[in-house]
């Protein structure tokens, strides 16, 4: 059989952890947080660009998830629910900071396109590939994370980011155009 690892499984759904017996939604959420925490933290780091903010955002997302666990349906995808929750917390926090600093209300999407200065201050993005991804505007680097690293379909990523599918496609196209130069230094695994 021809082996083609580039054939993507992106459109497949990934299950959240399923537990049996009569457990409350909060039990499901609580049990699911630890295994998902590294991915949630990476999402927060990609969003905020700073380790301390990522710690805060990931933790706040978990606490909010526990507080709102009755809104989570066991058997659905806890990872996506957490990412969408983190997205919402971050956007609302950003907006309120801007209000407090006198910059007035701005659309969430516009806030989402601001770069938050991912930089060499953290060596978390030390490789050439990561530093180039980190230099993308927030919305584009999150699209790259969700689709190419987390493996979500465009539709699933759009659900998490709460934008139309076409917006995800457009962000990925722009990101690919900006990152295209990386392929010259890479091996043969271009996709």
């Amino acid at each position, binding site marked *: 059989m021809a082996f083609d690892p580039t054939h993507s499984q992106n459109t497949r759904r990934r299950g959240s952890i399923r537990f049996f017996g009569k457990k409350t939604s909060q039990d499901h959420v609580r049990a699911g947080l630890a295994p998902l925490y590294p991915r949630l*933290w990476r999402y927060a780091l990609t969003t905020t660009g700073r380790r301390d903010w990522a710690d805060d955002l990931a933790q706040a997302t978990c606490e909010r998830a526990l507080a709102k666990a009755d809104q989570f349906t066991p*058997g659905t995808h806890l990872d996506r629910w957490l990412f969408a929750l983190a997205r919402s917390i971050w956007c609302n926090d950003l907006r309120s900071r801007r209000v407090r600093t006198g910059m007035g209300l701005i659309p969430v999407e516009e806030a989402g396109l601001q770069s938050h200065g991912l930089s060499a201050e953290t060596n978390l993005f030390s490789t050439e590939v990561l530093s180039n991804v980190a230099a993308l505007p927030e919305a584009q680097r999150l699209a790259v994370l969700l689709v190419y690293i987390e493996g979500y379909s465009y539709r699933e990523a759009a659900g998490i980011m709460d934008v139309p599918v076409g917006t995800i496609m457009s962000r990925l196209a722009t990101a690919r155009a900006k990152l295209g130069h990386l392929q010259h230094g890479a091996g043969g695994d271009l996709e």
Partner: protein
Amino acid sequence: MTDQNIYTDEDLTAYLDAELPQDRMGAIAAALAADPALAVRLQALRLPMGALRSDFADVLRQAPALPVLKDAGRQRPALWRGLAAAVVLATTLGATAWALRPQPRDWMDFVAAYQALYVPATLADVAPTEAQATAQLAALSARLGLDLGAVRVDPTLRYRRGQVLGYDGALLVQLAFQAADGTPVAFCILQDARQAAQPPSVGVREGLQTVAWARDGYGFLLIGGIDAEAIIAAAQKIDAAL
């Protein structure tokens, strides 16, 4: 010669990501074959996915452990307190939308959820002798009607045990391996005549790297860890050996 301007970078990106309907995929493939300039544009959009995934996997390893969380309902940090109303609203809408979506699950989702519970210690004390391993695999081969004798083809994966499981009335065999660093890896075989042949595809489930394929009435899934290259390489060897 096609007019390459009819295809945008978005179209080409969705083509690279296999996110277009079949007819659209075919039309772009034909245009690429006929139009070198379009092929150059496509080439410029390609990314070194292996390096990208491997670098992001390194970031994952730097993640801190889950911190001690405040109990739900207690006072929240001042930074977040003022946002509660907006978040409640957004979360309610979001959760409702998610809850209403259909969520099909397949056997691999169940395997992944089970595999997510494996830690290196799970298999630490399971070390069959060569004779025991051979006997286990022979018994499982007979049950499956599939020769698993050559399944231990990847020297980086140490065979630990085989288990007979079931999924929806079908026989499911799980072979547990450990990588050199202790990472649990499972090779699972579902015996199901309804299973349509599928070429190998790479994915992530429950945060675990997977390669899945199917042929001859068997579904195969290799799953474990976050090292995509290692899992892909092992899957290639196993697929070739079976």
